[in-house]
């Protein structure tokens, strides 16, 4: 369809952007990759008054390695995360996640910041950032605050981002202790969004699982950490862990998404199979 009339501004100055956002009746909608926004505008299910294009703000772009962390600018697009070999050397999961997002065109435009700002129930990056316990850096004219990815989503499946704030960057730890990862995703054949996707991190010492984190997306109203499953896995012997029988814990106490394509029982089952596959891959990497 044809979108309604909308006003448009673009700035490359972060302070200018924050000033625009801070105006009381601003009603600004931020435009980065636009791959969630534009389709909804075309269908007129979203009718913003003013778009603010933030793609040319230098502070929001790029991947930077620091001593204890890696800083990923909010407007870093999926394909940059797919191609950054330095990043993959420490966290190959970025390649695994990115390569199953959308298609080439979507990956070239869509950004990691935009994707967590939208916080769709099928958001893959948020699940990935949850297991990394990433810090999401926000800025407004009032100042700067940092939110742990695990606290990003509120009880009402919304996120904590205020209307006067910009996501500036995402900071993830360096992988200095040989943590391995696993990722498994079953995609919807039309949208490519996950019917169920699971990302895992783990490390082991002397055959014991000493560190494990699991998060899932596409399964419930928002991505979530599977703490029950993590508790069941920790301190197990790597070689004796029956991931298949534990995998169902991923969706215990979770309200399952249902739609005309995949109903509750199927999605719950897929959550378990993808968990089992992600963990198997992760543990296999640990054994190598």
């Amino acid at each position, binding site marked *: *369809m*044809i*979108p*309604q*009339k909308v006003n448009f501004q673009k700035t490359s100055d972060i302070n200018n952007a924050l000033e625009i956002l801070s105006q009381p009746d601003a009603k600004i909608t931020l435009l980065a990759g636009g791959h969630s926004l534009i*389709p909804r505008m*075309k*269908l*007129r299910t979203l009718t913003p008054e003013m778009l603010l294009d933030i793609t040319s703000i230098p502070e929001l772009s790029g991947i930077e390695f620091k001593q204890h962390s890696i800083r990923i600018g909010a407007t870093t697009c999926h394909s940059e995360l797919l191609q950054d070999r330095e990043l993959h050397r420490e966290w190959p999961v970025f390649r695994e996640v990115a390569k199953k997002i959308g298609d080439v065109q979507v990956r070239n435009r869509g950004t990691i910041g935009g994707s967590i700002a939208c916080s769709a129930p099928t958001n893959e990056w948020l699940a990935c950032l949850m297991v990394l316990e990433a810090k999401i850096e926000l800025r407004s004219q009032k100042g700067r605050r940092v939110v742990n990815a695990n606290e990003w989503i509120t009880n009402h499946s919304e996120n904590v981002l205020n209307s006067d704030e910009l996501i500036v960057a995402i900071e993830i730890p360096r992988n200095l202790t040989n943590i391995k990862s696993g990722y498994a995703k*079953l995609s*919807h*054949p*039309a*949208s490519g969004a996950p*019917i169920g996707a699971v990302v895992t991190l783990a490390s082991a010492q002397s055959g014991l699982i000493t560190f494990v984190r699991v998060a899932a997306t596409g399964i419930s109203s928002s991505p979530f950490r599977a703490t029950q499953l993590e508790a069941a896995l920790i301190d197990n012997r790597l070689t004796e862990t029956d991931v298949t029988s534990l995998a169902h814990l991923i969706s215990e106490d979770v309200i399952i998404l249902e739609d*005309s*394509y*995949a*109903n509750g*029982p*199927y999605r719950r*089952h*897929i959550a378990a*199979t993808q968990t089992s596959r992600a963990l198997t891959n992760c543990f296999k990497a640990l054994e190598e």
Partner: protein
Amino acid sequence: MMNDNRNGSSHRSYIGDSILRTEDPHFLRGEGRYVDNIKLPSMAYSAVLRSPHAHARIVSIDLKGALEVPGVVGILTAASLEPDNFLIQPNWLVGDINVPPHYLLAREKVNYVGDAIAFIVADTRAIAEDAKAAIHVEYEILAAITDERTAMDKSEIYANVDDNLAGTFNLNSGDYDAIKDDADHILNFTLKNNRLIPNPIEPRALVATVDSSNDKATLYIPTQVPHLHKRWIAETLNWPENKLRLISPDVGGGFGAKMHLYVEELLVCIAAKKFRRPIKWTETRSESHVSTHHGRAHTQEIEVAFNNNGLLLGMSVHIYANLGAYISNMATGIPTVNCLGFASGTYNLTAFKGRVDLLLTNTVPVDAYRGAGRPEAAFIAERVLDRVARYLKLDPYDVRELNVIREFPKKVGLSEFDSGSFSAALKTAAEKVDYKHWRDQQAKARSDGRLLGIGISNYTEVCGVGPSWLMPLVGFDRGGYESAQIRVHPDGKVTFRTGSMPQGQGHATSYAQIVATELCIPFEHVEVVYGDTDVVPIGIGTYNSRSMAVGGSAAFHCAQKIVSKTKSIAALLMKSDVANVTYANGFFCSSELEPGNEISFVEVARVASRGHTLPPGESPGLEETYIYDPTGMSSPNGCHIAVVEIDPETGVIDILSYVAVDDAGTLINPMLAEGQIHGGVAQGIGQAMLEEVVYSDDGQMLASSLLEYALPKATNTPMINSSFLSTPTSTNPIGAKGIGEAGSIGAPPALVNAACDALSVFGIDHIDMPLTPPRIWHAIQEAKNIGGSK
């Protein structure tokens, strides 16, 4: 003098050459010119207000707010159209059909989600959309009917259609009921043929303009049938047909959906005349899904009688065909003549008993979509063969071998197959896929708990339906012919015009191959022209895989007429008896003259254009028209075999091998034929594994956007091992049979048979299309539960 290369290979036969498409460079450079690229001076834009309800009475329409939107030119509704709110008429009515009234804009009632209510014209497209949003319609919602199987039991949508049954069609041969009593076995089952949305990459688009100097309207339209569309529009609007010109520039796919008469085509013409401005209408993708007519949508109840050895005796087929809310152009012919007539596929039967109920529902109208009845038919026949084999614990290949038709000509249903390679295609496909190897692999896989399946699908169809006198006998209000016109310019270069209208088939290349071959001139010297009703004198169009069989034959005969005239001129120039003149490689020679006195085609063209030296009675110039009416239909056939593996944990199907052996008789350009197989198989994968329109009980289309409705992508498409047999037809002079729809007919049964074969270990007999992972997983769980409770 001419610089003809007398010794070089100035001519060869181009038939059977995989020549690269001459139309591609401009597409690859992004220079394609589609209707939506056309911008005329002072052009206005339009939008259609559509019903959000499946079935509702219109209480009131308030245009006030919309008309106040700055830039609005005007708004048409049923009330403002009167007395010109004409009725859309179907073009194919099989038997006695109660046709419900289909107005250009809804009067009193809307009958499906997408039914047109108002036509808004404005200075820009965005303004038209804004005005559309400002129209207030008050509805009184009525109960909706969506399912064809129960439509007869529901309250009537139209006063003139009792039980929502627009008509019935019966087709019987032999005495099925008697045969049934003597058969060793009888099997009953029901198949659903899923409703599909045709998704040409270019949606429908229109530009209409009226020249006030002569009151002539020009409509730019991506149509498969320019001359038919022109006739239908003129007939509907009561406009003189000589005051209407249709132009089809590049067309981005059609699949049948661009050969029906739609209300927008008439509204844009009316509006262009009324508002005295060129007007454009372009459908969006989401709009296309509720306004461009759908395909398939059958429930099929099947009974088959057979013997212990797998020999088929008889079949009974009862089809409940969902026509949607109105009877679209060819809608009544698809489930009847095109489907029921082919339900026994490529197999011998002693008796057949068939019935089709044509049912109206509150859904998008259903009409021809690639294959148009034959995919629905092949699905019946091929599921029957697999069910019989499964029941008798016989190999599905052997059961096909036993029953396949081997003798031609063969009359089946309403058609006569003049020739075919039904058993050779089966055998070749089995060899190519290495059938025995995969049966061994399947046994091994099963012992490892893996699910491998092999599916065979034989098909036949009918392409290039004719002759024309036959058409009215089945209620088809059009001819079966096609036109060709050749103009040889004074320099010997050729313009060829055809009534065919490509939507991606490559006609600029394939027709040039035929014309160049028959005229013995270089391929590059032929320009192919189509898609303008003022330039091409007469024509039918491109559908039913008919262009090469019918249009190609017209080109062949037309070239013969040119050759005949040039020969007579050459004879005169050589002072020879025409009987002694031969034409080859671009040169005329006479047995009466010494070698070295040949006259070139170019020289004759030059002479003909001057008119100085002509045989008595011949007119100057070289221009001929030939309208070819086929003597009979052609019947391509083929065998597709798919090997699949199913992940029992997720229900995901992986296609391990796909073999397509097709016989379309003479292939003009094998590369283009293979391309048709690739595209057809991809769409067949769409039907078998991905696509389905589902309606809620209140008639809302679920999964209506491409975020939910899954089209086949490159990642869904396996390597297709395609090859061809060649059994030329005797029903036309070039022996071509048609290839455009074959893939979409052959693929769905091959894939479903393969999946059901893989799942047979669970005792699963059948899963309805599309075979989505959730559907397969649920079937496995259900089968396990039943198994567990035994």
